[in-house]
Structure formats: structure tokens, C-alpha cells
């Protein structure tokens, strides 16, 4: 089977390949030299299995994800549908602001759908969202995902995204994140939204060296 390396991530290498005549992505969790074997094996095994399950559960929750074709626990590989598009990360930096904000609103709705089903993505960054030609967003990379009913975990999920906006998309951070929250509010409803929003603020203030009145939020 031929494989072409597309991208090296922190968790895995992403290859383009083919399976019964169609283009597929092979996500291979390679051995990391810096980790001792005990930790390395545990992480790779756990994440390979979990990611495949979560990709499927997310799809059931109404969030577009690549379809999983094969899971190989021996080789730590997940073979999935190839979704053609650009990363939201790149679009936000280069596309139109108006469109970007619409996408952020949509993204908030998708995150809301996940949380309503008790799924936490665990690594919400703009490079884990693929934007297709017809403006559909696919969520990928569920390696750090898990199930939870805790507001704390939903808060952290959104807080991580906020951090990505503030550090990388800093010019449009506030607007973008506010649109994400609006979309989220629309999906989860006012009551749940308030709880999560309060949590996000709490998590921010918990961090180091926060002059609490200065941390922006909405």
C-alpha cells in the first residue's frame, strides 16, 4: 500500500493513501523517541481506539467527521475518509472576516452538539477543523477526546479554543470567540450556556498571574 506523508502532528503522522480505489487518510501513531516505552505504548493504544470511537459518536451527534474505515491496534493506525478542504486556521487568517465570523458561529453550534451528547473534543484548535468547498466543517483529531457530563470539561473544551484565538488569531480573537459562544448558546440553550460560560471565566482566572479584572471575556 502506498502512503504519502501529508503532515506530522504531535500525536501522529497523517498519510494519504488508497483503499479499494478511493483516497483515504491513514493516521498512524508512530513511536515517539522522547517517550519511554511504557508511556509511549499506553498513549498510542488508548488514543487509537478512542479516536475511532469518538469520530463515530460525533457523527451520530450530528457533527461532520471523516468516516472510519479501519482500525489497526497492532500498528496503531486509523484509516478514514479523506476530506478535501482547507484548515479553518488558514481560512481565518486569509479569508474574509464576515465569512470567518459566520464559520465561528457554525463551529459553536457543532461544539454544542458534541457537548449535548456528552462528548468532549479535548483539543479544539482551528487546525482540527477542515473547511470543505461547500462551506461544510469537518471536525478531526479526537485523540484527546472523552465522554463527560461535567460542566468543567465543557468549559475547558471551549477555553482551549479561546486560547488558540487569543494566541494565534489575535487580531480577530474577541469577535471570533464571541461568535463561537453565540452559536454554542443557540444549540445548548440559555441555561446550560450560562453554566458553561461561567466555567470558562473561572478556568481563565484559575491560571497563573491573572489580574482577574483584566481577563477579557465577551
Amino acid at each position, binding site marked *: 500500500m502506498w502512503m504519502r506523508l501529508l*503532515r*506530522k*502532528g*504531535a*500525536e501522529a503522522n497523517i498519510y494519504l493513501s488508497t483503499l479499494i480505489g478511493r483516497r483515504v487518510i491513514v493516521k498512524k501513531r508512530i513511536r*515517539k*523517541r*522522547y*517517550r*519511554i516505552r*511504557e*508511556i509511549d505504548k499506553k*498513549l498510542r493504544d488508548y488514543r487509537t481506539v478512542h479516536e475511532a470511537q469518538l469520530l463515530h459518536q460525533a457523527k451520530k451527534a450530528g457533527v461532520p467527521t471523516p468516516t472510519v474505515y479501519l482500525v489497526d491496534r497492532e500498528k496503531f493506525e486509523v484509516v478514514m475518509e479523506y476530506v478535501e478542504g482547507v484548515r479553518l*486556521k488558514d481560512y481565518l487568517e486569509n479569508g474574509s472576516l464576515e465569512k470567518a465570523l459566520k464559520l465561528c458561529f457554525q463551529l459553536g453550534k457543532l461544539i454544542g452538539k458534541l457537548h449535548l451528547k456528552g462528548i468532549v473534543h*479535548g*483539543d*479544539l*484548535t482551528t*487546525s482540527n477543523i477542515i473547511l470543505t468547498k461547500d462551506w461544510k466543517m469537518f471536525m478531526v483529531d479526537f485523540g*484527546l477526546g472523552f465522554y463527560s457530563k461535567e460542566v468543567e470539561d465543557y468549559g*475547558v473544551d471551549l477555553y*482551549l479554543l479561546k*486560547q*488558540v484565538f*487569543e*494566541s*494565534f488569531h*489575535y*487580531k480577530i480573537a474577541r469577535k471570533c470567540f464571541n461568535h463561537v459562544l453565540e452559536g454554542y448558546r443557540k444549540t445548548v440553550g440559555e441555561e446550560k450556556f450560562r453554566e458553561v460560560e461561567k466555567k470558562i471565566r473561572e*478556568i481563565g482566572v*484559575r*491560571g*497563573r*498571574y*491573572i*489580574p482577574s479584572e*483584566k481577563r477579557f471575556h465577551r
Partner: protein
Amino acid sequence: MGLKACLGVESTAHTFGVSIVTLDGKILSDEKAVYKPPMGRGIHPRESAQHHTKTAPTILQKAIEKAKIKPKNIVAVAFSQGPGLGPCLRTGATVARALASYLKVPLIPVHHAIGHIELAILTTGAKDPLVVLVSGGHTCIVAFAGGRWRVFGETEDITLGNLIDTYGREAGYPTPSGSAVEADAKKGKKFIDLPLTIKGNNVSYSGLLTAALNKLKGGKWRREDLSYSLQEAAFTALAETAERVLAFTEKDELLLAGGVAANRRLQEMLKAIAEEHKARFFVVPREYSGDCGAQIAWTGVLAYKHKVKVSIEKSFVKPKWRLDMVPIPWRKT
């Protein structure tokens, strides 16, 4: 120009340091005294501040003598304005204010963590690195963009230095315990399962600390094995988040800075990650990894050249000053 210099005063936590650095970046002197708490105890802010008060005159004198500089060539006095322990910060600030007013030169406020970063850049020659800053006060992954150091990942609770020192204290090592824990960890062979918490680009160490302390008190495990396992778990979590950010930002330089940067095992891990992503790897020289006056003096030079200064009346210390709040006029994106 070579002769003109900035004097920097560092006093955020256990170290009182004074250094003189020329405007073109030559470190003429870097003197320090480190407060060592009694065995089994951590830093007491008041006692540490008293230590600084006692040692300040000697350290100051040594730094000036060693630099062989005439007072008139000191064109600015910089101090660590924060973040840190209030009483300690105020001691250093008092020394700096007195000096600046006596010498009639500008007083320059410096952010301690930015001091770590700038000194690491000066001493390694990195240009535009992704910085992994690990110390008792900071554990964060930052890169420069749009006039500020932006935080891409950080600890959500305690710092790496904090984790190691608190564990070390309970395990019977002196504080700060980084090098003792590292030496012991080298003798460890068996990995004891400890929790490793990664949240996106962030880490969380409080659960790891609790688990390690419980195992320590259980008395079932060899201390060497536990120290080894603690280091592996903590460093692996940090290394993974560093790799995540490196992949995301696509920077081609990775720089390890701060007190914990002296740890060989951590260096080895980050070096492997840099190589994997074809990034150049830099680590701050050991002598400049821990808190020192040079980080303040050198950042003071950069700030001085860009007219950053503060009047004595407004030079309050900022114990909770956050790294990404500081405008950096001397660095271009």
C-alpha cells in the same frame, strides 16, 4: 557605546541578583545570592525578602567591582517588577529606585519571564523561536507575534518547578530540588504509573503531584523509581504540548529557557521533538537558566533603547503581571 551599560536587579523569589550588561549585550558581571529555606520547607516570602535585604549591599558592590565600570557609564537601572513574591519584589525595587535616583538615570520595569526569554535568546543566538519556558513561576509555551509574546500553551494549575520542588521537599531533598531529583531519577529503573494530564496545548500538574505524594507516603516504592516516574510523566506531558504548538505554529526554532531548562532529560526530549520537525533546537546555558540579574539587565537594555521607563512614584511592583500583557516594542514580528 560599548562602555555604556544597564544595571539590573532581580528579586522575584529566592534569588537576589545584580548584573551589569553593556548596551551591545556583553554581560560584564552577574552576581547573586540564593535564599535556601530550612530542610523540608519551601520559600517563605518574608524570610526570603529578609535574605535579600541582608545580601543586597554585598551583591551590588561585587557586581559593580567585577564589571569594572564607572558609575557615570551606568545609563539605566532595571528591576524585576513582577510577577513574583510581593515582599521579595519590593526589596529589589527599593534597591533599584535608590540607585536610579542617585545616579539620575531612568528606572526601567522588566517582566521577569520576558527577562528569561530575552537572555536565552541573547545567549543562544535564536532569532524567532517557539519558547518553552519552565521555572518555579512559569510553565508556558510562547511565541512572538503582533508586538507581544503570545501564550499558546501553559499549565492550568501549578508550574513544573513547583511540582518538582513540592515533591522534592516531601521526598527529603533540599529546596530548590531540581538537580537532586534529576540525579536520583537517573538511578530509577522502574516506571510507576502516574497520571499524565494533557488538555489541548495545556498541561495540568496538580493531579500528578497528588498521585506522586500518595505513592511516596505509601512507602511501597523506591524513591529513585518514583523520582524517575515523576520526571517522565511531567516532561512527557509538556513535551507533547510543545510538539503540538510547534506543529501548529510551524516555527523553525525551539528554545528551552527557565530554571528547569537545566534538566538534561527535558533537554533531550525537546531536542528529539525539534529534530522530528526539522527545527533548530536551543537551550539556555546552565549559568543563565536560573533567576539572575543578567536577565533583567539585558531586557533593561532592550527596553531602554525603546524609551520604556517608569517614574519612581509609579514604580509599584506587580506580583501578578502576566507575560502576554507586556508590549514589546523592540521585537518585530
